[in-house]
């Protein structure tokens, strides 16, 4: 019975992980940039929501549109004025974008620390649980899962059915093919980075009522998103959902069996395991 309880916890956690990873995946797809500041946007949004709740009593769900717009604008600015200025067509292009997002990560973490302090905050919101016989389903986790599901499906529909969404996917799948079709790849990258950051901030809003957060914790969420995406296969959206469920279940079971401290090693452990056994990810294509 405890196993069922842990499985439910893990799956509910997987929803938010999948949403966060979707943002990470879009950015990697259009730019081939591993965004090391991804988790910092997640926790920044979470800290903002916690602040708004404790200071003004604002329900974090109502803040979702605000954090999404904030993330979109912040992401567009970061791409337009920082990433786009990196020299292209040089061998070290990937290294320089890694260095830039690494620096951005420190900047956001430091800025968050200066503005909001280093103490852990959380939103005491929906602290109850539904009882189904011996199984208890925490309300906050269920709500976060449902919200993550709705947002993920919503963004997936936008990626499928809008002109920009198709341009983002086309650019991800074949850069020169997209150029040949006349797509303004620079613009798509700006909007893709903006969308990815907006999704990170949406995930952060949900995180605010699930966990204690402080602005220094971004790395944890970056690693989670990176692990999820690597497990599923970089750029593979279906794979990322699978990866999120696997990571959610692993964290849930390992924190029960091994304790919370060791459970933090779960994404790294999965990372190494997948890279050793299926380097292209579970649903990734083998490199030709």
């Amino acid at each position, binding site marked *: 019975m405890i196993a069922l309880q842990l499985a439910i916890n893990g799956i509910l956690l997987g929803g938010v992980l999948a949403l966060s990873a979707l943002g990470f995946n879009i950015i990697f797809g259009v730019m081939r940039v591993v965004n090391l500041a991804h988790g910092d946007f997640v926790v920044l949004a979470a800290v903002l929501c916690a602040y708004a709740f404790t200071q003004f009593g604002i329900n974090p769900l109502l803040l979702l549109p605000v954090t999404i717009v904030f993330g979109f604008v912040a992401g567009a600015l970061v791409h337009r004025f920082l990433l786009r200025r990196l020299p292209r*067509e040089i061998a070290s292009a990937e290294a320089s974008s890694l260095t830039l997002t690494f620096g951005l990560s420190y900047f956001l973490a430091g800025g968050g620390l200066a503005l909001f302090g280093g103490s852990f905050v959380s939103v005491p919101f929906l602290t109850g649980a539904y009882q189904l016989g011996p199984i208890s389903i925490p309300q906050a986790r269920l709500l976060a899962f449902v919200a993550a599901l709705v947002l993920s499906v919503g963004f997936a529909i936008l990626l499928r059915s809008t002109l920009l969404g*198709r341009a983002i996917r086309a650019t991800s*799948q074949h850069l*020169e*093919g*997209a*150029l*040949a*079709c006349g797509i303004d790849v620079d613009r798509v990258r700006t909007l893709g980075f903006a969308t990815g950051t907006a999704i990170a901030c949406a995930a952060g809003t949900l995180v605010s009522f699930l966990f204690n957060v402080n602005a220094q914790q971004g790395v944890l969420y970056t690693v989670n998103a990176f692990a999820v995406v690597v497990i599923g296969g970089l750029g593979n959206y279906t794979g990322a959902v699978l990866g999120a469920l696997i990571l959610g279940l692993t964290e849930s079971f390992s924190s029960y069996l091994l304790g919370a401290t060791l459970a933090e090693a779960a994404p790294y452990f999965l990372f190494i395991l997948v890279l050793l056994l299926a380097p292209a990810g579970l649903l990734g294509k083998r490199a030709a």
Partner: protein
Amino acid sequence: MSLLAVDDLQAGYGDFKALHGVSFAVEPGEIVCVIGANGAGKSTTLKSIIGIVRPTGGTVIFDGEHIEGRAPGEVVERGVALVPEGRNLFAGMTVEENLMVGAHPKRVRRGVARRLRESYDRFPLLGPLRGRRAGSLSGGQQQIVAIARALMSEPRLLLMDEPSLGLAPKITLEIFDLVRAINRDGVAVVLVEQNVVQALELASRAYVLTEGKTVMEGAAATIRGNADVKRRFLGEVL
């Protein structure tokens, strides 16, 4: 006035210069063939015209306007389309989605449904495949998707880079028939091909590139009969 006039085009990748002075012209409605050895700069020429590679010198005039150095989006908007070497399809997207991305230019965004219908009429093979992932198709089918995708932007000039690459001889003939049919509808074509004999039959005029320079030009039949071309590209022993 020529539809396309390329004059002394120069381009490269980083420090490597691939084009040292390519010049050629395309008249409205004609098929021009560009031949040359591997590495002669044929693909780079097409990529420089469409704007994927940024030229470092020379001019490209399309329909009376300078387009050298312009972004691909602007060039496609004006009526040039590229069928890239190796097809460059969006493998994870369906055939129909690939075609829809082809209709990206503002000029053709309205009426995509009609253009899709026209595309399925012209390429009956694609209708039943519209929901299939492009990456799961055969080479010949993929080539047809690449051609159909380029036509979605309703170009006046179609640049085709090795459309027969990796295809069986029978499929190659079908592709060449398609090129002829597209041209009959008034679309001018620049054809870069390894199948020199067949390409020269299709084209009215031809240019020969060597080491990034135009070294010969003439009527396709004249080029076909040139001893040097025969020896170098047609493998004929004289």
